[in-house]
């Protein structure tokens, strides 16, 4: 897994509440059997004026001039600033794949949907929850200052503004450790293989109807 230690990058807005994973990556792109190539279709229905389909060349499609990610000032952004309940809806990991493929390494929002939040860590993306009023002030500063950047530091668990304001964030210690090191969590769980086998043996004795039925 990709590691995340710190990121200093341009900030772009996704200024609406309850952004769902259908909006992040629409259903037609879920037909892919690959993990990559979703970046050009991130927020497809907002970014383009026409209907997208998998495998197309997006460079010639009509762009929505009102969508911030199409503005010059946000090109090359690696930190997405968002509103409450970001990533709600479907469990599709294609959502973080699309964000990552586009170039986002971090999403800052007042809150995230549980499944999306979890999926981010599996893909080297750091989701950061900050108080709503802090996020609000970051939005204001970003809109007011073209080229607005933030520094996100997972070691110190801090977001630092260009003015030097520092906001601490919370992150589960185990997830932080895995993301800092880029650890493969399947490999980690397999270190517990003897415990899994022992559990399975007890389960087989206690609940034999759970085994050897779907064969």
């Amino acid at each position, binding site marked *: 897994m990709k590691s995340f230690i710190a990121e200093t990058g341009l900030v772009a807005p996704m200024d609406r509440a309850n952004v769902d994973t259908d909006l992040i990556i629409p259903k037609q792109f879920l037909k892919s059997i690959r993990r990559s190539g979703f970046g050009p279709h991130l927020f497809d229905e907002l970014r383009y004026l026409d*209907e997208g389909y998998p495998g197309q060349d997006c460079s010639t499609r009509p762009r929505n001039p009102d969508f911030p990610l199409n503005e010059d000032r946000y090109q090359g952004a690696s930190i997405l600033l968002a509103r409450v309940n970001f990533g709600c809806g479907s*469990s599709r990991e294609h959502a973080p794949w699309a964000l990552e493929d586009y170039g986002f390494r971090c999403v800052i929002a007042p809150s995230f949907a549980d499944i999306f939040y979890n999926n981010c860590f599996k893909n080297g993306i750091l989701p950061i929850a900050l108080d709503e009023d802090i996020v609000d002030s970051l939005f204001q500063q970003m809109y007011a200052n073209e080229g607005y950047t933030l520094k996100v530091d997972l070691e110190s668990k801090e977001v630092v503004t260009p003015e030097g304001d520092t906001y601490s964030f919370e992150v589960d210690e185990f997830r932080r450790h895995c993301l800092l090191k880029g650890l493969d969590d399947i490999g980690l769980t*397999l270190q517990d293989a003897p415990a899994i086998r022992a559990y399975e043996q007890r389960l087989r004795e206690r609940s034999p109807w759970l085994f050897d039925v779907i064969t």
Partner: protein
Amino acid sequence: MAGQTLYDKLWQSHVVVGRDDGSAVIYIDRHLIHEVTSPQAFEGLRLAGRKLWRRDANLAVPDHNVPTERGERSGGVSGIVDPISRLQVQTLDDNCRDFDIVEFEINDTRQGIVHVVGPEQGATLPGMTVVCGDSHTSTHGALGALAHGIGTSEVEHVLATQCLLQQKMKNMLVRIDGALQTGVSAKDVVLAVIGKIGTAGGSGYAIEFGGEVVRNMSMEGRMTMCNMSIEAGARMGMVAVDEVTLEYVRGRTYAPREALWEQAVAAWSELHSDPDAKFDRVVELRGEDIKPQVSWGTSPEMVLPIDGYVPDPANAANATQRMAIERALEYMGLQAGMPITAIRPDRVFIGSCTNSRIEDLRSAAQVVKGKRVASTVKQALVVPGSGEVKKQAEAEGLDKVFLDAGMEWREPGCSMCLAMNADKLGAGEHCASTSNRNFEGRQGFGGRTHLVSPAMAAAAAIAGHFVDVRDW
């Protein structure tokens, strides 16, 4: 020590390795697989040279991409017209063959929407941990199981280890006491719950649904409620095991029998929250107060009773809400203040993992029997949740009722719930839909979804606009 909730019990009985921070390696009893979120997981296993941990814990079925129109369906996988969909379904077949996983293939009678098939076959049972790369896995919690959706990395994790590393959630009880009015169904109840707590209301929680209304509800109704826990922000919803659960499970293909059945029933009798269990949050509704619901906006929390009026952004509580309402009205093509009953669907969709079980179809058929779909409705689709549901419905003559009314009777699959197949809305079209999400573009580019119960969808198909099915 305070008593335990149902969720506490299910969690505790599946801990393989507990960690100091409260997270744990949790054992997964049943892993359901479909074609959309699994290809990259199987590929990951291959690339890492890892083996499948336990084949008999897995069951696979294609559902999202399968065509529901009989002609296209009859050709099996190779008959799927869209080459990308075809490849995805074919890839599931190939992966299941390579890893020796049991799959109900496209034209197997047991095929259907994964969340209809699991309980129907007894593949998901009380007391289990159930996961699937699909957020509506919460459905299986209706059986008294700990069931939730996962991403593709976790699908790979379960294939390789039969476990997941999980954080424990907080406990929420949603209690609905009293009794429902005639014409009000489980769908209306869960939409009312979402309307009350919001789409993020359940974030960080496991929801248990309880109270008289839930106790008196069929398993189909309980599945509808648990299915939409995720629309309230909760990854999992569940209902305690009772006689209704046992009656439903008994005799199903993969359910235990004879002595094992007795042993299982004894174990399952513990699957309820203790009377002194502590919940972090309790939400209460009265059954009598719940009216048939219709969503008007682009989030499931944007929902109103049938006698309501489309909200006015001017009356919003704050700027964020005002913007959300304005945007939703624009996308939906609705005017503030118009009555919900004035909304006219162009299409009607009865199906999806929320509402495609036999009881749902019976309830829709009862409404349309002897009537005709309004001339302004371009299409009314009825899509059974599985081959077994289809067979049962046909045995009861429900297919005839729908066809006589001018509706289409299709082959089982996810169909128009998410438009990954040929069934979709055109831009600007309104749909009375029994599915679970009214997000922008969900049912087709520019499509406008109104979430309703099967009876309400059926009544809207006949009347040509939303009507109160209590007056039907």
